[in-house]
């Protein structure tokens, strides 16, 4: 069975009353070539996909498929060689205000010289959010990730999973419209990881934020996403874009035991294996030199 690669944008009702655009994040023909002494390296060839407002999409690909490169282009940390990224219709040329990024390396992403609370508060402080409002936002964010008991701790006094929660709280408090996550759970243990996955689903539902979740873990992508975008191996194109038609209420035991979960997982796995072998989707095949 081949699910429709372009789902109708009617899926989720936006949380706020105002009319939202049909596309929140648009990646149009993004290409990235690194210039090195050893010659040019084409990390990303031609990537195009759209995210609807409030969508939770997972991006999977074999290692070295340019996931991190793509994320840097989307978050405005790096300019693509060709193509463009549009956020809410506006071209991304630097880190956009409506976007937050959660990095894999929580230990380096959190500032060790600041306490948990100060870490979460910093982006708001920098934006000039008044103190009272800041306090409310930080409290709510820490509450949402279940860390309201450690605001005075330093990040390095916490476990890895808790540190990543702090990073997530910082992203929540920032009130982004798009949340990018770059393999956020790759460095935490399996049990913590399951908890954090559920946390992401809860936060996503509560905030109605658009999430692009990059992972190399196939199970994780199927469990978390409403949609999985599979990347080819480098130079990267979209290998396949599938809808995850699992029930909206997910839980670690039952969802993962569903026959449909196994099917989807199987399918994504096959596609990744194909990608590793150098198979390319028909549309992009013609561009291969």
């Amino acid at each position, binding site marked *: 069975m081949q699910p429709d690669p372009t789902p109708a944008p009617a899926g989720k009702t936006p949380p706020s009353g105002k009319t939202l655009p049909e596309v929140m994040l648009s990646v149009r023909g993004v290409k990235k070539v690194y210039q090195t002494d050893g010659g040019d390296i084409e990390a990303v060839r031609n990537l195009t996909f759209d995210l609807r407002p409030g969508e939770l999409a997972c991006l999977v690909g074999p290692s070295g498929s340019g996931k991190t490169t793509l994320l840097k282009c989307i978050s*405005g*940390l790096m300019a693509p060689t060709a193509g463009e990224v549009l956020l809410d219709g506006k071209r991304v040329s630097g*880190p956009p205000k409506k976007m937050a990024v959660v990095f894999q390396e929580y230990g380096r992403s959190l500032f060790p010289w*600041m306490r948990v609370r100060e870490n979460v508060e910093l*982006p708001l402080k*920098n934006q000039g959010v008044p103190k009272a409002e800041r306090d409310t936002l930080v409290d709510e964010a820490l509450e949402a990730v279940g860390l309201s008991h450690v605001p005075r701790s*330093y990040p*390095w006094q916490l476990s890895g999973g808790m540190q990543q929660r702090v990073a997530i709280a*910082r992203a929540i408090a920032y009130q982004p419209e798009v949340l990018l996550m770059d393999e956020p759970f790759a460095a935490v243990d399996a049990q913590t990881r399951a908890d954090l996955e559920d946390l992401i689903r809860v936060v996503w539902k509560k905030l109605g934020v658009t999430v692009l979740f990059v992972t190399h873990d196939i199970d994780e992508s199927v469990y978390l996403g409403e949609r999985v975008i599979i990347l080819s191996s480098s130079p990267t194109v979209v290998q396949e874009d599938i809808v995850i038609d699992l029930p909206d209420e997910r839980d670690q035991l039952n969802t993962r035991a569903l026959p449909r979960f196994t099917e989807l997982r199987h399918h994504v796995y096959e596609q990744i294996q194909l990608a590793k072998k150098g198979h390319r989707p028909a549309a992009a095949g013609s561009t291969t030199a």
Partner: protein
Amino acid sequence: MSSDDPASGGPAPSAGRDRRPVRRLPAKQLLGLAGIVGFLATWELIPRLGLIDERYLPPASEVILALVRDFGLTAFWISVGETMAAWFLGLIIAVALAVLLGFVIGSSDFLRKATNSTVEFLRPIPSVALIPLAVLLFGVKIESSLMLITYAAFWQVLIQVLYGVADVDMVANNTAKTYGLGRMARIRYVVFPTALPYLMTGVRLAATVALVLAITAELVIGSPGLGREIALAQSGGAISGMYALVLATGLIGVLINVLMRSIEKKTLSWHSSVRSEVIV
């Protein structure tokens, strides 16, 4: 003693438990103290046994007595004040300049490359080589000392700040960028805290070097302070007095180091070098 403990019954174990950490803690200090006592005893014996003539090396007891006498003299404290004033001012100027330049140079790849060879050329010039120049420019005033102190201390701090600024973590910096922190905000919240441990090391090293240069300048140029007093004591034949003043400069050096360490510990409580460290 281990056989006594279980036999002594009731109150003994608790008393032993109370005593043990107390006994273990000062062991290091006791050993240090023993070292000092041993050193002083050797010093005392060498002139007393006539190994070295007392005229050149007075016994420790005599020197310490002279030092204690100095403590009671206003003139001594004025000299200490003069030395410390030159030390402090020179250090402050050096740190301020080095921090400013370090951050400016360090945050630009172009400036870093452009200044690297100049820094490496100027840095090894010994500050004392500038004494004739200092005298030419300022005479025997405090400015001469300041110039030498500042020159020597400046490089210590600058080099450390340059390393510190270069040590900024890419992920931390990218995080700050994605959360909309501009250049100045990143310097304040990311670059400065990253460079702070390096800066503190630089300041601690510079503080010691600054004291050396302060004393040197006073000795050689004759600007007011402990160094000049040492020279005067020597030429006046007050050998014990001279040794006492040398001892005083040593004590000042120790105090400066202790002070710097405690400041470092307070400001860097979050840093891995401090947070894992057992108090020394």
